[in-house]
């Protein structure tokens, strides 16, 4: 009876051990081994070839690492820029409006993630919905017209002031005069912009919800107290509301950044083959032609370590605000 609580925790402990701890150990072991060669260790019938080769190869994929983190950071910042004001405005609305708005924010999440991303594909395609709309409204013609205008302007500049400058400085500068003037569509799919859009679209609710739930719990009397002490609207926000909503912001950033940096579906569907991200790279090592689970594990491990370090720094930054939520 004394260990009653421990008894109830047992299923969870087993679950965690089987499905969290064990896979991580497996990934670590795989990351430090190879199919052959290396330092051989024998456990009965199990042979391990320990090596650091996987990490040595990591340099080849530096571009993928930087691109992944870059896009994830951009997507997270965009989510924050869009999500914070939304959450803030929402939290100050009446209960009825809040309920409806929350519903609308959650609604897309009830639909399959892949389906949602696929539909963006058909929206962004060269012959997709958006381009059809643009051409119907005349935006594409407008684009062509602007481009041709810019071309002739640049041509004029090239023969005029730029030529003069080149003469003076002995340089070979020339402005671009070859902008496309016969576009039939805007190229949107298979660009990093489309990938970021997919991330923002899919993960925005994860930014809005934690921020909203912190702000909605903020004690109105704190805001009144700040005003009473002489703070105007912007100061109340900067000195009271924003610092007190930081815990929400931090968990929002975590919840958007982590899935963004490791996604492979979004980049595959909206980024095509141009925008290979870490997620795609890892996936390829396990299912693709380049089958190499050892390298895949090593990449996954490095990514995990970077993310954990980032999050630790972030949370250190937000330390002391934690109590604020509990008040």
């Amino acid at each position, binding site marked *: 009876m004394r260990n009653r609580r421990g008894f109830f925790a047992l299923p969870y402990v087993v679950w965690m051990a089987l499905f969290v701890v064990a896979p991580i150990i497996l990934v670590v072991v795989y990351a430090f081994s190879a199919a052959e060669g290396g330092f051989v260790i024998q456990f009965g019938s199990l042979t391990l070839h320990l090596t650091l080769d996987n990490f040595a190869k990591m340099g080849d994929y530096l571009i993928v690492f930087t691109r992944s983190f870059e896009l994830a950071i951009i997507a997270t910042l965009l989510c924050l820029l869009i999500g914070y004001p939304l959450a803030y405005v929402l939290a100050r609305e009446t209960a009825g409006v809040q309920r409806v708005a929350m519903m609308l924010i959650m609604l897309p999440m009830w639909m399959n993630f892949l389906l949602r991303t696929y539909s963006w594909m058909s929206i962004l395609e060269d012959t997709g919905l958006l381009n059809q709309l643009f051409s119907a409204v005349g935006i594409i013609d407008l684009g062509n017209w602007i481009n041709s205008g810019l071309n002739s302007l640049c041509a004029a500049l090239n023969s005029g002031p730029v030529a003069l400058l080149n003469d003076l400085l002995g340089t070979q500068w020339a402005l671009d005069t070859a902008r496309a003037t016969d576009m039939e569509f805007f190229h949107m799919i298979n660009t990093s912009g489309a990938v970021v859009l997919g991330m923002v679209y899919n993960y925005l609710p994860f930014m809005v919800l934690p921020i909203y739930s912190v702000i909605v719990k903020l004690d109105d009397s704190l805001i009144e*107290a*700040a005003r009473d002490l002489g703070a105007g609207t912007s100061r109340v926000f900067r000195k009271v509301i924003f610092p007190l909503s930081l815990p929400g912001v931090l968990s929002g950033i975590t919840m958007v950044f982590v899935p963004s940096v490791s996604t492979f579906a979004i980049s595959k569907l909206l980024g095509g083959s141009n925008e290979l991200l870490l997620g795609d790279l890892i996936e390829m090592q396990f299912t693709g032609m380049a089958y190499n689970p050892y390298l895949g594990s090593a990449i996954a491990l490095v990514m995990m370590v970077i993310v954990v370090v980032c999050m630790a720094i972030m949370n250190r930054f937000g330390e002391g605000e934690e109590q604020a939520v509990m008040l």
Partner: protein
Amino acid sequence: MSKELIRLVDCCMAFDGEQVLDHINLYFNDSEFLTLLGPSGCGKTTTLRIIGGFITPTSGEVLFDGVRMNDIPPHLRQVNTVFQRYALFPHLNVFENVAFGLRIPKEAEVNGKKKKVKLPEREIRERVMEMLEVVSLKGFENRKVTELSGGQQQRVAIARALVNRPKVLLLDEPLGALDLRLRKDMQNELKRIQQQMGITFIYVTHDQEEALAMSDTIVVMDQGRIQQIGSPIDIYNEPKNAFVADFIGESNILDGIMHEDYVVEFFNRKFKCLDKGFAPMEPVDVVIRPEDIDIVAPEQGQLRGTVTSVTFKGVHYDTIVDFKGYKWLIQTTDFHGVGENIGIVLNPDDIHIMHKSEYSGMFGDYSSYSEEYDEMDDVTLLDEEDEEESHEE
């Protein structure tokens, strides 16, 4: 000696068509400790919030030094508030909480030009430390406010408001969340601070004892109207109507008839009293404080009755005595057992006469003594919760 600082002229306030304040006319003097006293929902907090600038009265004027302030937002008013639940900033330590107001650039005249001026860090430090000393919190400046006790948080809240050197400090039931012992200590502390700083305190409470102990002036409110304004002694000894008599202390309130100046009749018997200026044969309310009644042997008494219940209260006994079916509360230090026949003597200065009012007949009858007490407790609890909810709107 005292100068008028704030005046409310005919202030009315309605929330969703419900009248909360009904033509409040009130002025506040320099260095005065004024208490707005009344039951939950009487409009006292609303009055305070109008002065603080958090709400604008539906009609009437708010004047600071004769200047209309109705639409001036709180951050531009020279008053500061101590909130019911302190409202300290949980992300700042004690020092930064107190310094919050000082760190805000203030408009000031520099070389003839209006400019936003920041206080130098050294001055901020001096003023905060000085104020922490006033509220006896020296050495606490680096503590987190969440680690402080209720009483300490209360002091931080007071220091945070006072450090801005307001002309008027508004206090909204600041001791409500403290236990009895701490409450008594803080009452003395607040009174000391008020006298030391020499500024006006406008204090809101529903606790009559607190009001009597601390105030220079008490404003008794009920149903959005001012019932009586006066010093604690006036309010206690000369209540204007049955509501005030009942709300401040205990009172036996009886129907009487004023025969002529200094003569009142109740229980078919004429008594001498000290009141005059009533119309001949005017029906009046007669107030007799339970502690003023002397119990004597039955044959010596002006009235005779039977003790129906006795409650020991520490300093005295609450004795309920039945006089011809009408029950009085008498507080004496002598014990008289249930069933005992006693007589009472009323001296002229024990009897206080009031004009009839809308409250006549509602208070001052102890016929259902014990039940009334229980109900009263319940009602106060419920009402307080209600009031909080309405505040949040």
